[in-house]
């Protein structure tokens, strides 16, 4: 074993003291001199023509500096499919559509001005069910698109699924649905835009994609006639991301437009209601799945057809099938796979990336049916999965190259810790589900790279500029650990700066659990350059051969003679303050050797893959349908835990988010309108809901990861829902196929199984008085 000084240690987050003392500055805490407050008017209908907008009353209000509608702004196209605009022209297609925006001297005046904007709508027929919206003659959300089905060809077929179906000894087939859930970042969205006299833009914004956001805003400036001007994106401390900040949003463009028109800094900051209503959700899905195996339990095929409710506009939610393809083709060995997904416009809210990026939805269907198939084949669920487990060296049908893989060990850990074979009490059951996720970057964009610049000062301290975004997960700390380890420095010697596109290099964004792997490798690459030069300087100074000296404990020292050493700071000063002086700086851009998907969606998307298995023991109350988690085990193959404490934090946080996804969370849309835009009615779990959880970590030392590490940001919430659904089936014999698994759904299934109606009475009896079902 290597004797690491920083890597592998439970190092506190380097920003934790700032946060513990209330000093950390979030977008909510920033105020610029002369700053105005922007507010947005949203649609009153899910689908309607805008007949007219009268802003005259709002404009006359004292303190109002600007009122904008689509008529006042250039054609700025937003989103993945460029089907969205900051302010809507002609018609609205969902309740979250932005219709007008104001800037005023204070938030109260801005609110009052919104009330003064008079919009006359002509309601249109609206459509909220994607399967209805796909039908011929359905109301079109975007007439110019000619159809509600997006032209995104998510379709693959490897091997021959139809032939495999004929050979299969056992087949299961079913339908699963997942609904809207939302990120619930504790720090809501917001940005402040400001133009200098030459019309260069500075924007403070919560974003996980500073470099891509900069590009989006540059495009907006071009549309505004400001081509060639500069954009500087500054990230304040971010109050949670989870994928919500992977796109640029109307509110950011609105801040930019208001700032441009008023020549003042303008802040647009969401309140909690707005955060629920006007930010994007996880992608909801309808999944038709069949899987089949042979007599011995070997999987023969997986066949999946999926419908995605795209909502009214297109953000990254519509591209989640690209990641769903990974578990669909490559979670377990499956020789024949077919998958097709259609994204369908409706008048609902539109979806975005959210932790797991489609993987939780796909894994819910896959791992639920894996259990169903195991039962049909008469094989224990763990053994069934073991028969089909991925192994190091595998290349899946999609071309994913499995390098390190601790899947079986994860299953073993779950089996042992959950006491899988121990007899269970009444209404108790165990279930498990596994996951595969990208662990070595994900090439979804043209580059999957990240840049790092290291600058050393005269005292042996480092300023490190990274493209990576720390939104709370702790990437700054992990980067500092990697660099400290490589250079024999202490964590506190490394100052990580990630907040400003003027000084930080390019990065594709904090997504796909890629930051430890990609930004970590980028930092390591820069550190290695610095190290080479330090060793060179040290060898000269100590008059020792290069191979005999090492960096340790802030010193360069001779490996055989501990007396022969020099402090790194001193060495640097000697190098700096001499004729022909030099200072140490290095840059490194790391772009992993992963592949974009080809035409048939084949390609090794990630340099390595993270595996894991979650197991859960539940007790189901058969009278109420309530599911109690008795024990939860989340085992992951992480390559190498650079910081076990932060890693556990990712797993615990992921699992609790996954438990909410499985059991309690749901954005309730009633004809497109959000009925629960608050924490009272949208139920994220609280401290009282914490379940007993263990997080065994398996280290497989991936050869491509920094010090062997793979990504772990998302996996924690991927297999939670199917593990619970499988445990519920084990406990009471009912299979829940729709998320969230509410007590109502469990109770209805239990009663149906017992041949009772929803009120718990025998079918055919009609004691209306005793049965009141609330609609």
């Amino acid at each position: 074993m290597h004797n690491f000084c920083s890597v592998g240690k439970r190092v506190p987050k380097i920003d934790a003291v700032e946060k513990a003392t209330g000093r950390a500055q979030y977008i909510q805490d920033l105020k610029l001199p002369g700053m105005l407050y922007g507010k947005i008017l949203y649609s009153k209908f899910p689908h309607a023509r805008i007949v007219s907008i009268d802003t005259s009353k709002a404009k006359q209000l004292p303190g109002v500096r600007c009122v904008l509608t689509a008529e006042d702004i250039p054609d700025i196209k937003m989103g993945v499919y460029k089907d969205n605009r900051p302010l809507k022209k002609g018609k609205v297609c969902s309740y979250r559509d932005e219709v007008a925006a104001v800037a005023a001297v204070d938030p109260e005046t801005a609110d009052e001005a919104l009330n003064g904007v008079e919009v006359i709508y002509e309601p249109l027929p609206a459509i909220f069910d994607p399967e209805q919206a796909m039908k011929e003659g359905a109301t079109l959300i975007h007439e110019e698109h000619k159809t509600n089905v997006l032209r995104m060809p998510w379709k693959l077929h490897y091997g021959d699924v139809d032939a495999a179906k004929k050979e299969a000894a056992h087949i299961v087939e079913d339908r699963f649905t997942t609904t809207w859930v939302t990120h619930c970042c504790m720090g809501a969205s917001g940005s402040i835009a400001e133009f200098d006299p030459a019309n260069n833009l500075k924007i403070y914004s919560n974003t996980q994609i500073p470099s891509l956001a900069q590009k989006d805003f540059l495009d907006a400036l071009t549309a505004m006639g400001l081509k060639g001007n500069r954009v500087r994106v500054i990230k304040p401390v971010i109050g949670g991301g989870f994928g919500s900040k992977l796109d640029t949003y109307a509110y950011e463009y609105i801040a930019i437009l208001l700032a441009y028109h008023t020549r003042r800094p303008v802040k647009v900051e969401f309140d909690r209601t707005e955060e629920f209503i006007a930010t994007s959700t996880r992608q909801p899905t309808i999944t038709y799945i069949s899987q089949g195996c042979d007599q011995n339990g070997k999987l023969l095929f997986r066949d999946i057809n999926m419908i995605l409710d795209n909502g009214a506009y297109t953000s990254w939610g519509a591209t989640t099938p690209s990641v769903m393809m990974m578990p669909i083709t490559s979670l377990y060995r499956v020789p024949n796979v077919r998958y097709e997904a259609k994204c369908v416009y409706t008048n609902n809210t539109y979806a975005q990336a959210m932790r797991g990026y489609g993987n939780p939805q796909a894994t819910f269907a896959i791992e639920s049916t894996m259990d169903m198939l195991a039962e049909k084949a008469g094989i224990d669920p763990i053994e069934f999965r073991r028969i089909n487990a991925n192994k190091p060296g595998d290349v899946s049908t999609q071309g994913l190259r499995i390098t390190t893989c601790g899947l079986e060990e994860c299953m073993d850990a779950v089996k042992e810790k959950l006491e899988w074979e121990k007899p269970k009490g009444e209404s108790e059951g165990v279930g498990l589900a596994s996951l595969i996720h990208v662990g070595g970057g994900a090439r979804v964009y043209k580059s999957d790279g990240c840049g790092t610049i290291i600058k050393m000062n005269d005292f042996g301290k480092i300023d490190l500029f990274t493209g990576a975004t720390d939104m709370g997960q702790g990437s700054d700390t992990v980067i500092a650990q990697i660099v400290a380890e490589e250079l024999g420095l202490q964590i506190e010697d490394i100052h990580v700066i990630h907040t400003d596109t003027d000084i930080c290099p390019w990065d594709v964004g904090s997504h796909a659990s890629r930051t430890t792997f990609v930004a970590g490798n980028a930092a390591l690459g820069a550190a290695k350059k610095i190290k080479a030069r330090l060793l060179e300087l040290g060898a000269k100074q100590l008059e020792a051969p290069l191979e005999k000296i090492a960096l340790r404990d802030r010193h360069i020292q001779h490996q055989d003679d501990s007396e022969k050493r020099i402090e790194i700071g001193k060495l640097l000063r000697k190098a700096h303050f001499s004729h022909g002086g030099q200072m140490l700086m290095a840059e490194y851009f790391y772009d992993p050797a992963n592949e974009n998907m080809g035409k048939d969606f084949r390609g090794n998307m990630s340099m390595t893959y993270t595996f894991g298995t979650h197991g859960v023991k539940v007790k189901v109350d058969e009278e109420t349908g309530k599911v109690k988690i008795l024990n939860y085990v989340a085992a992951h193959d992480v390559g190498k835990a650079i910081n076990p404490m932060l890693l556990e934090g990712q797993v615990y946080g992921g699992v609790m988010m996954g438990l909410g996804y499985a059991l309690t969370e749901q954005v309730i849309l009633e004809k497109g309108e959000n009925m629960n835009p608050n924490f009272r009615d949208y139920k994220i779990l609280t401290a009282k809901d914490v379940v007993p959880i263990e997080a065994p970590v398996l280290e497989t030392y991936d050869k491509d990861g920094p010090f062997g590490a793979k990504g772990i940001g998302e996996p924690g919430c991927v297999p939670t829902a199917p593990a619970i659904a499988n445990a519920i089936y084990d406990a009471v014999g009912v299979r829940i196929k729709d998320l969230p698994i509410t007590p109502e759904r469990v109770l209805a299934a239990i009663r149906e199984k017992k041949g009772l109606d929803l009120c718990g009475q025998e079918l055919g009896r009609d004691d209306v008085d005793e049965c009141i079902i609330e609609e």
Partner: protein
Amino acid sequence: MSREIAFVFNGNKMNMAIEDHWTLLHLIREELGYTGTKEGCGSGECGACTVIVDGNAVNSCLYLAAEIDGKELMTIEGLASPDGTLHPIQKAFVENGGIQCGFCSPGMIISAKALLDENPNANEEEIKEAIAGNLCRCTGYVQIVDSIKSVSGHEAQEPHVVAFRSEEGDRGD
């Protein structure tokens, strides 16, 4: 309507004119300029704005500023010693991974302070009860509860990392 009030703010006596409709959160953030206390929802559902008034944790977004008259107010800024030494609860959150994005942390730490001031030996259930009104989306609460337990006279559990594979690649030299 405005009125004069007097109160103790993080140990310092204050006299100031306030408007009747101000919330305590508005007073702290907008008038006093102390931004450590966060607004997460504005309706008493998330606890990010928790402060201590006369020993009790309250949601400052639901508390009228006028009510603070004659009382003692503590915000997150008043917790560490003037020389910067962290309060043991702050230190525990830092060292046990109780903080990720940090937006809930001031309110969470303040709730823990109010609990431990009243019940220095709070057990796990009491801790969970005390912070049940403080929502956190990042941590899953596990390390937050561990943090508070570590200063409540009950030791935090052993680290949960248990199984390690023995072999190792040739990286990381």
